[in-house]
């Protein structure tokens, strides 16, 4: 893994995106009934902030994320990024990292990272250079030629993050990216993500089931309840940056996690 010093600093002010969600609802129509997945969701994310969505299963947090990525359309309300609506997926503005690494197994790591550029017909040399930068940023210098099955779970997610960042979008959306990893890798990847976030100044919206992960990573935790999905609480995390492992056992950390847990227990 590469040390921090190699990272090219980007200009945070230009790279960050403001997200605004206004009165958004989502109804899934099935043949027998309509299921209200999300009801009247409003939230703002300031440029460069790290926001984590938590909530019980079925609270629609992934649905909300898919709508931010324009992979789903909301039934009502508006979603804008830097004031502009997103009618269809746009990797120039929004990068997405999925739960499973979702890398294409027939492509090498660098070809995977180049994929969104190749879709746009970017020239090979420029593509390769950008992929190299992105792989270096996530600490995978020298692993570009490997296929996904030759990489560990944590390395695959690094490639996935590199792919999400390769077009330098202001917003990075992450749908339980570390859920399939073991706990040690998960902790390391959390620190890695915070390092990449600090280096790039992206606006991050991160969905997780883990309360510890939520408090550890976030500037702000948004707690949702299930059926229908609604926002029940928003917590600012006042812990200083950079976050360190010993904060996990502190009182401030514990009381934030307890507060989230009480909400989730109530609605589950």
């Amino acid at each position, binding site marked *: 893994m590469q040390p921090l010093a190699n990272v090219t600093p980007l200009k945070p002010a230009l790279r960050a995106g403001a997200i605004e969600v206004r009165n958004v609802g989502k109804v899934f129509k099935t043949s027998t009934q309509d299921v209200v997945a999300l009801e009247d969701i409003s939230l703002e994310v300031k440029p460069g902030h790290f926001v984590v969505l938590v909530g019980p299963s079925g609270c629609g947090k992934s649905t909300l994320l898919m709508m931010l990525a324009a992979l789903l359309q909301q039934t009502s309300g508006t979603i804008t990024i830097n004031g502009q609506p997103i009618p269809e*997926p746009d990797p120039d503005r929004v990068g997405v990292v*999925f739960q499973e690494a979702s890398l294409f197994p*027939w492509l090498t790591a660098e070809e995977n990272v180049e994929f969104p550029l190749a879709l746009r017909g970017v020239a090979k040399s420029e593509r390769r250079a950008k992929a190299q930068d992105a792989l270096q940023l996530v600490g995978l210098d020298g692993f570009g030629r490997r296929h996904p099955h030759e990489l560990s779970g944590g390395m695959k997610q690094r490639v996935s993050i590199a792919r999400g960042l390769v077009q330098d979008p202001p917003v990075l959306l992450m749908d339980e990216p570390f859920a399939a990893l073991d706990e040690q890798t998960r902790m390391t990847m959390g620190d890695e993500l915070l390092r990449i976030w600090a280096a790039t100044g992206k606006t991050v919206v991160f969905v997780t089931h883990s309360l510890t992960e939520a408090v550890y990573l976030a500037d702000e935790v948004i707690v949702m309840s299930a059926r229908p999905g609604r926002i029940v609480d928003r917590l600012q995390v006042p812990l200083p940056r950079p976050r360190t492992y010993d904060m996990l056992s502190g009182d401030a950390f514990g009381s934030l996690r307890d507060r989230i847990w009480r909400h989730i227990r109530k609605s589950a």
Partner: protein
Amino acid sequence: MTATTLRRLIVMGLIVLWEALPRSGLIPELFLPALSSTLVAGWNEAGEYGHALAVTLYEVAVSMMFACGGGILLGAIVGSLPRPRMLIMPMVSSLYAVPLVILYPVFTVWLGIGSESKIAFASLYGFLPTMLATAAGIQTIDPQLLLAARSMGATLSQRLVRVIIPAAIPTVLSGLRVGGALVIVGVVVSEMLISSAGIGYLISRYRTILDSPHVFAGVLLVLAMAITFNAGIRWIERKVAIWHTGTRGGESAAVEIAPGALQPAT
């Protein structure tokens, strides 16, 4: 000793036994002629065998085109569209249990006893597994991959070319392997049943006059054909699907198809 050397030793042992057992008189030459007399018999009639091989190879090649082309095309349609799938799949599955060879006499009535009836039968015979494997290959593509491609702004045609086709290749190839093997079976079997040319016809004709060395020379040719075909497919698989580690949908689909597909061969 590695598995490979062990396998080679077993094959060599079988070849030695093929020569030694008939020579020693343990097995009558009528049941199993020695390898050397088989080869000599084949060599003496090289012209006849060569002509038969040409006929058989022509029938196999044309059937292969119909079976694999049609199988991949229809499999892709059935695999990606739910409505045709609901219409066609139950029919195909029940057809699968029918010993298709019963159709061959019908084909000879329609198309005569020349190459056409063999091609029709072998094409149909190899078509089913190819189509089923292709449909399975497309259906079992991880939806997460398609979602990821969509999140990166891939259009429908980009998703088809850059995601669906490469993801389906290993399964399609394993279908081709089974389908292609069945095409060879189909051609040879139909030649043996009602025919006037080809290796199957030669085997069948020499059998009726109890000329075992010539029968076995034909058998050797069919064996060589099947082995060459299989090696060819394996070579393509290695070239195309380096990433395919043998644990994904492709292999399991081939295993599922193979036993059922090979059953109605006789």
